[in-house]
């Protein structure tokens, strides 16, 4: 579809305070999310967090119980799914087993009464885009999972929907194939320029694919942002825990308004930050913001915070090393040190150091751990 190559012809989506209640279960609790035209937005979260429900709501498979939903500038509430003109790719492919690949892809065009010559041309283009041109006369049962999913993708884009929804499309495939198809999906998104909304529970997949990611938890959106924003500036403990590794520390906090001191099992760390809200805070540190050194090995730079502990796990990663250090209060710090730094053995007494500026103070959320495990 080289001649159709244009950017920004996707539809904008505006989800405004949408709720979905089943009996006494709240699947979506006042969810708001704006998606820009042509954006690749990933809905990320554990199972039951509301991401698939959101997708179903946008697709029109599920009626909302409150709020408003606009696609391409006008409300679609009450419009049945088959009139929304939105492409959907399902986790289990959902190809029609009684039709060949070609007829599957032609199906939405036949429904739209596209003349047969034009239909053939567009089926061919769509199959070319997913590199399945040679399979037009096969039946879905003769294809592998990855091939079926590519056909499903062709079928969902052949009628040029301004919006494509994908519900864990790679969930049933093995890792190698998944990684390759991620790149394919990225390429197709670039070439089509339509809006993609992608549901997954795999944070790596979300980071690879997305322009922005919306993190779901318990029927709410915790945070929306680029992968970098979510990693560097998590707004909630849940987001921090869900995206990337992190060390979470709890202790007695004292704040004088501009700086905060936290005492953790007798050791005190300080940082020039205010407490978030009025509850007990947690201290969050990304692995690469932490450094290790042997205990009692002279005085380090001043201004660095220090916590003593014991190495419990040392993993060589090629690009560096990852250590798990058991701190005095029993919690585990995860430290990543780049290649070339000195190495440590399991059982060694060490000090974990970090700059106060690299620490994040977040409101404690005891439910974050529950939903994650």
């Amino acid at each position, binding site marked *: 579809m080289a001649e159709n190559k244009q950017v920004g012809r996707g539809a904008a989506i505006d989800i405004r305070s949408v709720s979905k209640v089943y009996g006494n279960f709240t699947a979506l609790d006042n969810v708001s999310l704006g998606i820009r035209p042509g954006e690749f937005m990933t809905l990320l979260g554990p*199972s039951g967090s509301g991401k*698939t429900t959101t997708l179903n709501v946008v697709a029109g*498979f599920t009626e909302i119980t409150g709020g*408003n939903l606009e696609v391409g500038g006008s409300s679609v509430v009450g419009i049945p799914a088959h009139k929304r003109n939105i492409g959907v790719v399902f986790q289990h492919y959902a190809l029609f087993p009684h039709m060949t690949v070609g007829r599957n892809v032609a199906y939405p065009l036949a429904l739209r009464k596209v003349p047969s010559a034009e239909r053939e041309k567009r089926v061919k283009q769509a199959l070319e885009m997913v590199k399945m041109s040679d399979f037009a006369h096969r039946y879905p049962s003769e294809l592998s999972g990855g091939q079926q999913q590519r056909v499903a993708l062709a079928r969902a884009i052949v009628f040029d929907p301004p919006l494509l929804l994908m519900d864990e499309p790679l969930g049933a495939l093995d890792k190698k194939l998944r990684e390759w198809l991620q790149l394919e999906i990225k390429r197709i998104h670039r070439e089509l320029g339509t809006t993609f909304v992608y*549901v997954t*529970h795999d944070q790596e997949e979300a980071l690879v694919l997305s322009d922005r990611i919306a993190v779901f938890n318990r029927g709410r959106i915790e945070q929306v942002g680029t992968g970098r924003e979510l990693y560097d500036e998590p707004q909630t403990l849940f987001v921090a825990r869900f995206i990337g590794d992190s060390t979470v520390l709890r202790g007695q906090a004292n704040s004088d308004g501009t700086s905060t001191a936290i005492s953790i099992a007798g050791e005190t760390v300080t940082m020039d930050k205010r407490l978030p809200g009025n509850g007990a805070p947690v201290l969050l540190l990304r692995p690469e913001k932490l450094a290790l050194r042997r205990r009692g090995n002279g005085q380090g730079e001043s201004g660095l915070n220090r916590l003593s502990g014991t190495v419990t796990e040392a993993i060589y990663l090629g690009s560096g090393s990852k250590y798990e250090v058991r701190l005095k209060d029993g919690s585990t710090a995860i430290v990543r040190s780049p290649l070339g730094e000195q190495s440590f053995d399991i059982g060694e007494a060490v000090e974990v150091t970090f700059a106060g500026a690299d620490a994040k103070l977040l409101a404690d959320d005891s439910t974050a751990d529950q939903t994650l495990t």
Partner: protein
Amino acid sequence: MTSSPLVETDPGRVIARPEPAAKRTRKPLGPWLLVMPALVLLVAVLGYPLVSVTMRSFAEPDWGLQNYTWFFGTPVNLIVLQRTFAISAWVTLVCVICAYPYAFVMTAVGPKVRLVLVLCVLVPFWVSGVVRTLSWVILLQDSGVINTMLRGAGLSPVRLIRTQTGVVIGMAQVLLPFMILPLYSVMRGIDLRLVQAARSLGARPSKAFFSVYLPLSLPGVYAGAVIVFILALGFYITPALLGGPRSTMLSTLVQNQVLSLLQWGRGGAMGVVLLVSTFILLALAAPLMRQRYKQAGSR
């Protein structure tokens, strides 16, 4: 994510959507509308007739339990009732004995032989029941195939037609598929590695069979036996054509009361006895059948 719209039962609570009420009520009502024609037909041609038979058994010629006291007070009726159960039991037993090895072989052979065996089971299904009974008449009659062969071999002929033996032979053949099919479906699900495990633990083949395979196949035996017994209780054509006065079953008696003697009340009472026995048996068998499903589900 568990909330796929397919499994969701939408309670139809729509707040944000100003929708006509008709569309909202269609969802829960739709399935009922689809079932309605079948249900109406069932009530009209099955429910109503059964109710009217039951009514008549209490109401004709006068209101009361007269027909039931007559039924249980007349020795001939009790003999027939007892015989009906006895013949059904014999038929069930013959079916179990014949079906068990057959179904087992079905699970053990290759696909080609299995297809032949399956077709053999299905033949009785697609050949008209009356024609099959006719075949048994030709075979069992005094001048029939079996007696002609016996005479040819210099043996004295046996009386088969119009005896209980003849009835049991004919009925068992007609009902055998109902025993084989459930047995086969259960046996197919039995994990043969369990038998191997028993053998590796030191059990002789016969011991392994009786301690592992047989108990696992019992749900299939129960299911088949219940179906065969219930169908046998209500058999009419085969006993009527193959049986004689000494092998009359309850169904024939019912027919006789209604069509020949026009005793609707008495015929109705007999019918109700038959019907109630059937449903009691079904209710008793329900737990056994459920056990079967549980096993099939854990496969």
